[in-house]
């Protein structure tokens, strides 16, 4: 190690930073609402995303409760239709898309770059405000007469229903810009603000994942914006674009919608790949296996993700040729995905594995994401998709990927970076317990849905045949268990803010730059810009110090 400054940060943190960190630097509500500090913006995003997650989760539990019996259990047809629409829209647009990039990424990205902030701090704050405005529109739609179109807004239903679709569309439209701003900011930051010595292939894989994500956000989201705008125009002034009654083509909407929304699936899951790459390496005390393959497979997925939208439309009347091309490219995505999973597992081989909460979430991710990925192959086979399309098999598949993949990785990342964000350790025992309960709950909720789907239960059904009831009830039990687990997580995390032990600078022994500053980081992040002379996954120089319950870097500059 030839960078004394970086070493010095850890060994002798500046005394003033103990008392002065980004949380205490300024006081008052305005110091938060007008902040340009990426860390505070990240924390504000985190709070809002968690609020939305609670809302979406309540919708999910209401849906699962309604489905305990066929026919009416607690709500009417229309209310149920609004519930699943809101659940989908809130979870997709307000939780999963901004979850890892905007909440965790905002906090971590500049720190991992050893930078003071993102390239455009004002744009960053603007993106948060846009998120708030977009979210308000969704809430307005909620309290007036919530949209009942499903989060997919398929025409001509969405142009003819009497519910307030326009506020919901406008909300999604604005949220898209929030997402674009974040993506632009991240791309620029990674190009321009890398510290001395950090070549592209010395970037942590989390940054590679965020980079791939940002590229998709910037390229795909405008298409969603245009599509939603066209839908608003059609509803508002009756210009026939999608509605056949006005001379439009309803399937065109599906093409436009999935041209964004399939890449959006990768906006949701690729950041999760980044989080899992970080966690598995750190908790295995070993260099990540196949760094370049993991990094470039994210890029490959980002590119291929643009070319597969038609696999959502195998039974829409799309031609056999189109279906064949989309199906073929869809299968290609299986390869970079498989490469990642194999590399993560191989990283653990001959490592020294610490099963702390973040690592448990990462292993949890490996299991559920593998199921989600493999069932994607079932749906990519055109003949089988004819049977499985729009059934609970699809519901189970994307919940395994979105909930089991993206949300699990988000919670893994949250536990991993929590000590850095708030300077407190949470209760490890409760962390592991909740993670275990969540694992059981998730599989109990969604595995029965695979069986429902193959046996022919269509999705978005308020009513169903009695033969499906036992599986639905099993699924609802799992959902309640997940609800309980998330309450436990909320309780011990919030409790840690007051009663948690102070976190050391580097509790896990990671070698990425965010752990070289104190926890929580000072307002300016780093005393001096760190210099990078090695890859992000070199752990030999980090030694656990019992007194501070964290890792310190060996004083020797041997490496």
């Amino acid at each position, binding site marked *: 190690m030839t960078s004394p400054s970086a070493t010095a940060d850890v060994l002798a943190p500046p005394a003033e930073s103990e008392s002065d960190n980004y949380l205490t630097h300024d006081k008052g509500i305005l110091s938060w609402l007008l902040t340009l500090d990426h860390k505070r913006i990240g924390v504000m995003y985190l709070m809002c995303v968690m609020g939305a997650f609670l809302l979406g989760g309540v919708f999910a539990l209401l849906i699962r409760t309604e489905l305990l019996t066929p*026919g009416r259990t607690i709500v009417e047809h*229309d209310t149920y239709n609004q519930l699943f629409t809101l659940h989908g829209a809130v979870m997709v647009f307000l939780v999963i898309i901004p979850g890892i990039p905007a909440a965790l990424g905002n906090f971590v990205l500049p720190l991992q770059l050893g930078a003071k902030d993102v390239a455009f701090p004002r744009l960053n704050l603007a993106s948060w405000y846009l998120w708030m405005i977009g979210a308000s529109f969704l809430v307005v739609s909620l309290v007036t007469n919530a949209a009942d179109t499903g989060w997919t807004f398929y025409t001509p239903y969405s142009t003819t229903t009497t519910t307030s679709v326009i506020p919901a569309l406008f909300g999604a439209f604005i949220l898209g810009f929030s997402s674009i701003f974040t993506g632009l900011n991240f791309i620029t930051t990674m190009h321009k603000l890398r510290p001395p010595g950090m070549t592209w292939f010395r970037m942590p894989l989390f940054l590679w994942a965020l980079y791939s994500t940002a590229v998709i956000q910037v390229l795909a989201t405008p298409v969603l914006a245009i599509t939603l705008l066209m839908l608003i125009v059609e509803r508002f002034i009756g210009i026939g674009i999608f509605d056949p009654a006005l001379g439009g083509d309803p399937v065109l909407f599906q093409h436009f919608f999935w041209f964004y929304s399939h890449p959006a699936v990768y906006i949701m899951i690729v950041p999760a790949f980044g989080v899992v790459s970080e966690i598995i390496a750190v908790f295995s005390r*070993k260099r990540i296996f196949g760094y*370049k393959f993991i990094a470039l497979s994210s890029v490959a997925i980002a590119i291929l993700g643009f070319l597969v939208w038609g696999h959502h439309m195998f039974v829409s009347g799309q031609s056999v040729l189109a279906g064949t091309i989309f199906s073929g490219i869809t299968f290609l995505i299986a390869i970079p995905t498989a490469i990642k999973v194999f590399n993560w597992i191989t990283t653990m081989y001959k490592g*020294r*594995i610490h099963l702390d909460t973040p690592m448990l979430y990462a292993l949890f991710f490996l299991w559920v994401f593998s199921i989600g990925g493999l069932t994607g*192959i079932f749906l990519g086979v055109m003949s089988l998709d004819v049977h499985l*399309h729009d059934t609970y098999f699809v519901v189970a598949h994307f919940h395994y990927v979105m909930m089991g993949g993206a949300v699990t990785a988000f919670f893994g990342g949250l536990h991993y970076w929590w000590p850095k964000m708030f300077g407190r350790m949470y209760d490890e025992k409760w962390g592991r317990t909740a993670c275990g309960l969540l694992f059981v709950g998730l599989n109990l909720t969604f595995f029965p849905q695979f069986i429902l789907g193959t046996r022919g239960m269509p999705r978005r*059904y308020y009513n169903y045949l009695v033969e499906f009831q036992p599986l639905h009830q099993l699924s609802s039990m799992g959902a309640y268990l997940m609800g309980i687990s998330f309450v436990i997580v909320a309780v011990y995390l919030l409790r840690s803010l007051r009663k948690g032990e102070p976190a050391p600078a580097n509790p896990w022994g990671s070698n990425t730059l965010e752990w070289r500053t104190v926890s929580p980081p000072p307002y300016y992040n780093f005393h001096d810009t760190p210099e990078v002379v090695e890859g992000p996954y070199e752990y030999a120089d980090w030694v656990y110090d019992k007194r501070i319950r964290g890792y310190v870097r060996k004083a020797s500059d041997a490496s």
Partner: protein
Amino acid sequence: MNTMLARFLGGVLAAAPAGGLPDPPKVPHSNWFWMPNSASNFAAATDGMFDALMWISAVCMLGVAAAIGYFCWRYRATSREANEAAESQEDHSNALEITWSIIPLFVVIGVFVVGFKQFVDLRSPPRAAYEVHATGQRWKWGFEYPEGLTHPELHVAMGKDVRILIQSVDVIHSLYIPEMRVKMDAVPGRYTELWFRPTQEGTFPIYCAEYCGTSHSDMLSRVVVHSPEAFQAWVAEEIRKIESMPLVELGELTYNQAGCSTCHSLDGSAKVGPSFKGVFGRQEKIFGAGTLTVDENYIRESILEPQAKLVEGFPPAMPTFKGQLSDRRILGLVEFIKGPASTGEPVVKAAAPGGPVPGSPAPDSPVPGSPASGSPVPAPPAPGSQGANPAAPSADPKGGQQ
């Protein structure tokens, strides 16, 4: 618990036998863990593909679980204090990367090729297939047979290719028959198609698989597979029945078949549209046009041009039935709404001339003497006499669904 479902299941599983015609057998639920019964020529291929992928996935997941479990145990760290280093810092192997890229690549190429061939089969109906037109409409299916019959159920002949040309008159629906392993969207403004060859006699559910609004989950029907002879007899019987039926009965049949019952109750409860109970002769407030008295002409106009005079407080949700219902059926509806629907009295049946119709779904309770076993001796209900349409289960009073 749920009369709508009980009725539907009653209809599906205990199809009423009929005048001397063999009854489609009752088909118990598939006892295979994953798939429903296999009733078409596509089931073997689709299920074979599913099985193959299932085993591949199971092996993969077993491998993932074994590797994770073994590594976590074998390479576990004792404690942070111990500061154990990893046994190896080996971080790449091109041979491994190539291996685990190439093998899955070959697997997915194989899967793709087989899936492609199967899909081409699914999308290539034989020229000589029997053609039925299916129409999706919120929230019912209608099937029009080449013999000139329109019916809410799909009846087909065992072993005969059937091609279904699908259309929608409002939003997108999707015709889904799990037991046949077929599904195709009904898209407004264009025709789509699917085909299959039934390989098992029986009665199976049809669903709408593309979300279409309020009663999406009640947009059910059923496919009834007869022997070829029974199928011919069924078609002839249905046609004869409709031609000779008294107007009021035809009206009730149409009420159940054409989807009226989805939105208009008979018990006074408001659904999407006004209830028919007591409607005839009533003064209705018309949106933007004062009041009028419901008479024969208003009923007729409401069927043909439903948006012309809307009763206040109800959405403009009703589609037009112009060109879809014969004059005789419209007249029947007028008589039905004017008579039994308005007064709440049951339709007085004329003596059913030709006996019942095979495949008419069993109404609420299984008809005595028409057990699911397929007894050839029926004690049938008069044709179309009751809620004969599983596609319009909401014919029940609202409370009956709960």
